[in-house]
């Protein structure tokens, strides 16, 4: 049977314009990488948004996989942005193959 290890998977929903701040924080936390998934529409307490492309209201999901401790570092680094810019952060445990990479 293939060996797996447990890592944290973190997903941050952020404004496209501010994506770089999130990925900079990931780099700063010493995590090996990240991946961007597009999102097209959403609704929250501030009402609906849609990819409106002309006005900087677009959002993206930033995904990253990291060991528990680095995930914590990242979460703390990002917490102020969550409140300030209305980002959303969720994380959970996942099994990964080739865990030594993360």
């Amino acid at each position, binding site marked *: 049977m293939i060996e797996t290890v447990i890592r944290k998977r973190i997903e941050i929903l952020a*404004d496209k*314009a*501010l994506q770089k701040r999130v990925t900079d924080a990931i780099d700063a936390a010493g995590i090996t990488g990240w991946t961007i998934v597009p999102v097209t529409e959403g609704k929250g307490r*501030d*009402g*609906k948004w*849609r*990819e*409106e*492309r*002309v*006005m*900087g*209201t677009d959002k993206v999901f930033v995904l990253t996989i990291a060991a528990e401790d680095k995930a914590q570092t990242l979460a703390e680094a990002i917490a*102020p*942005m969550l409140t*300030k*810019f209305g980002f959303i952060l969720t994380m959970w445990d996942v099994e990964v193959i080739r865990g030594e990479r993360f």
Partner: protein
Amino acid sequence: MFDTAIQTFTSPVVLFFVLGLAAAFARSDLAIPEAIAKAMSLYLMAAIGIKGGVAVSKSGIDATVLSALGAGIAAGFLLPFFAYAVLKTFGRLDRINSGAVAAHYGSISVVTFVTAVEILTGQAREPGGYMVAVMAAMEAPAILSGLLLARGLGSKEGGAQSTGEMFHEVFTNSSIVLLLGAFAIGMVAGESGFAEVSPFFEVGFKGVLCLFLLDMGLIAARRMMDNRAVTWRLTAIAIFLPVVNGLVGTALGVGVGLDAGSSAALGVLCASASYIAVPAAMRLALPEADPGIYLTMSLSITFPFNVLVNIGIISAFAVYLTGGTGVGP
């Protein structure tokens, strides 16, 4: 003035905008794919930039051009102060939101400008090619004034972007880069170089503008229906400011010696409110300001008002001031 209004409403460009508004209000699922809307805006920027550059390569840079530039930049810096005062008192907005909205009204909307150029050209009053450069120069100054008003320059708060970072953002903004880049290409390539590519940039222009305005109509109307943050006071301001700024800008243009078409174009630039560059800058520099307010005002109220009504008013006013004869030949 009445003739002008009629002409405005039989122009396909304006009619497509109205179709967009109507379709969104009827809750149609009509939508232009995001990539296409982006491509159309890149195309319009490139076309307008290159055409402006070719025009200036023919006319050269003279005193008229320089005074138009000076007038535009000055207006960009100063108009936000007036807007701020109105927003704070009559509009009952707080300091931050007043500054953010003021920045939008001091800056410019490329699409409003392009639509105005089409309409003015249809009236045989084509603005000078250098007005494209004036437009580019007017994009940024208001952002500075707006920030000054909102938080005092330099007082960087945690999480907000440094002023330097923000200016890099504004000046490397894709529309500015493409507009100025294409302008430079137009100046270098000149009329002969432009001849090669002119079919592409001229044949498609008005048609693309039609579809782009269709999309803007859809977005403006959908945002209007979703919105709850804009009071009647702000709605009134979103109509009052473009009228006043438009008249001031037109008078300024005539004052520094521009022809009727170019004065009207300057008026339209002053009247228009940004909904691309400035919202992006504000999201970074003043994240506490509410996009629900500034986007809805500039995009859903001022933009349609300018396209449907105010360009006509400004054009008539420019004709009046320069002693013109109403609708041209």
